[in-house]
């Protein structure tokens, strides 16, 4: 039987299951904490840091924090919002994100957060890295220009034998996430679609099936990210 504990979100006391991920608990309480690398159903990583909140006055990632009795959380301060905006700007400046021709536009979490934080022109210089499009796979295409290395695909997409379809390649600032030629052999269309859906940006695409969701029916066309919740 689940044990419930009291915790504080932005000065208000709520009840949550003991040990629940803070991001999920806050969502259940109607409070939005932005995420990028986090994905429901897979272990948290704390990689992108955009879910950083103040816990008992100190910054910590909400996706890796579990709710315990007496936890005091501040989800939004001017400094936190500025920090989140900077993360979005850095991700745009670091890759080659050309929203006008991207199939994920309208359903892209990075783009949605950029709208939320009113990112127009990044304060950081564009790096314009030279990156490839990995197109050898019969069902999947990996556009390294758009990858934010959140690892959602590595952590969340596995073949029927339980092996990861994606893996890190290279090191340091040249690190890329590649499709594993062995574990991705003969994958089903459904698994290919799952891989595309788990990617928060347009870095993983299904081949031969583009722009099939019309404008107006994309994820964030009618409800901006987090708009259904209080921030």
């Amino acid at each position, binding site marked *: 039987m689940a044990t419930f504990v009291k915790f504080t979100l932005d000065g208000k006391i709520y009840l949550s299951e003991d040990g629940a991920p803070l991001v999920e608990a806050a969502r259940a309480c109607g409070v939005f904490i932005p995420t990028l690398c986090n994905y429901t159903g897979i272990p948290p990583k704390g990689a992108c840091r955009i879910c950083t909140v103040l816990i008992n006055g100190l910054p910590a990632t909400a996706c890796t924090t579990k709710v315990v009795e007496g936890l005091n959380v501040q989800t939004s301060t001017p400094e936190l919002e500025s920090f989140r905006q900077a993360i979005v700007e850095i991700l745009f400046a670091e890759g080659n994100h050309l929203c*006008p*021709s991207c*199939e994920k536009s309208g359903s892209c979490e990075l783009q949605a957060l950029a709208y939320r934080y009113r990112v127009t022109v990044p304060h950081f210089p564009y790096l314009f890295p030279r990156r490839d*499009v990995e*197109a050898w796979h019969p069902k999947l295409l990996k556009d390294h220009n758009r990858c934010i290395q959140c690892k959602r695909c590595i952590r969340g997409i596995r073949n029927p034998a339980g092996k990861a379809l994606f893996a890190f390649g290279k090191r340091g600032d040249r690190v890329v996430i590649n499709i594993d030629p062995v574990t991705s052999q003969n994958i089903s269309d459904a698994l290919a679609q799952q891989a595309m859906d788990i990617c928060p940006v347009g870095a993983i695409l299904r081949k*031969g099936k583009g722009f099939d969701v*019309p404008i107006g029916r994309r994820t964030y066309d009618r409800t901006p990210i987090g708009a259904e919740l209080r921030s």
Partner: protein
Amino acid sequence: MTQKIIIEPVTRVEGHGKVTIQLNDQGEVTQSRLHIVEFRGFERFVQGRPYWEAPVLVQRLCGICPVSHHLAAAKAMDVIVGAGGDQGLTPTAEKVRRLMHYGQIFQSHTLHFFHLASPDLLFGYDAPPAQRNVVGVALANRGLALQAVLMRKYGQEIIAATAGKKIHGTGAIPGGVNKSLTLAERDQLLNGPHPLNAGQMIAWAQGALAFFKDYYKKNKAFIDGFSRFPSNHLSLVRRDGALDLYHGVLRAVDAEGRRILDDVDYQDYIAHIREEVRSWSYMKFPYLLHLGPDNGWYRVGPLARLNTADFIPTPLAQAEFETFKQATGGKPNDMCMHTHWARLIETLHAAEAIHDLLLDADITGSDLVVKGARQAEGVGVIEAPRGTLIHHFRVGANDLIEMANLIVSTTHNNEPMNRAVNQVAKTYMTGQKIITEPMMNAVEVAIRAYDPCLSCATHAYGRMPLEIALVDAAGCVLDRKRK
């Protein structure tokens, strides 16, 4: 002493150009050139992208007629996914695309005639610039200006209903479309509250034609004689010779109306059309291969289309077409300013076609996409508002684009626009030492008749990005005017 007159910048598709006019010792015009000085590069940076991105990516070439690029690329990609040819798409996909395209034609032609060209007609090309603009039209004829805005709005609403949004939508995808019309959308466009419905648009298109014909009656010498020269004409026509702006075969006629390109499949365009590169312009010069660059250049656009087509498949536009053909005794029309007349006939045809498509049950169908055997190369051709638009792609086995060649409408009209500039310069600038504003606008009026995208920039109220300088052979500026 020879002299050179430079008009710079004039703008093209989201870009700049300039006109140079060379005068000899006697002050006679010896050479005129329209230079396009900006490099766009879309053919290069679409390489390496997945083929299904092309219709969305290449439409960013233009904010005025993106639908044309969107559809031309989609037609090329239909071939790539094995859904090309005359019967390739489902009836719903074909008709939704046609509706999108005719909405684009309707709004673009309306924009050009009322917002860009009508100030010259209403007030004269030599009227004060403060009056000769769309605001001047609104002040002088409020009803006409309001009608223009609402006609354009209607066309844009059709684009939004079919492509998802008014500019840079995503409706056409390889092998079909991603949406059809809902019943509510169809009813709104067909029978919406006055005046935004199909019937009113047909009536207003007829009114616009009546306006032009009345002007023509009073200014026949100017309309017939301004920048007139013989040329070849090229466009798509339906296989039975009908005007068809979405699909067909390539046909070209010479100045006498003889077929010089006889209804060829546009997949083979490369066997018939070549592009010449000249060192002084980034815009190439297309020509018919078998006639060569000197004799094979041609016009595209509304005037060319009415010269190549045998008939128009909607009744009201057909009646106007017959009147139009009578003006030249059935021979090709080479009168530059008659392009406006042809454009308005096409506007009426577009309104009729929209009406017919909205009454077609397929427009709300659910069978949207079809695919067949994957191909390596595909060509898509469409009649954009400004003329024939060719998109040619080669795609690798890995689904990435390896080669792209785009021949846009304004490029086809490169040689005709240069000749038009030359002719107007000879008429208005020979022997002149002082450049007047009407002289500059006469050059613009000639270019504007071809409706290149620079029209909107050169008519931007309060910011006329046109500079003209009169310099001698030593580079000494004799006179300079900017507006």
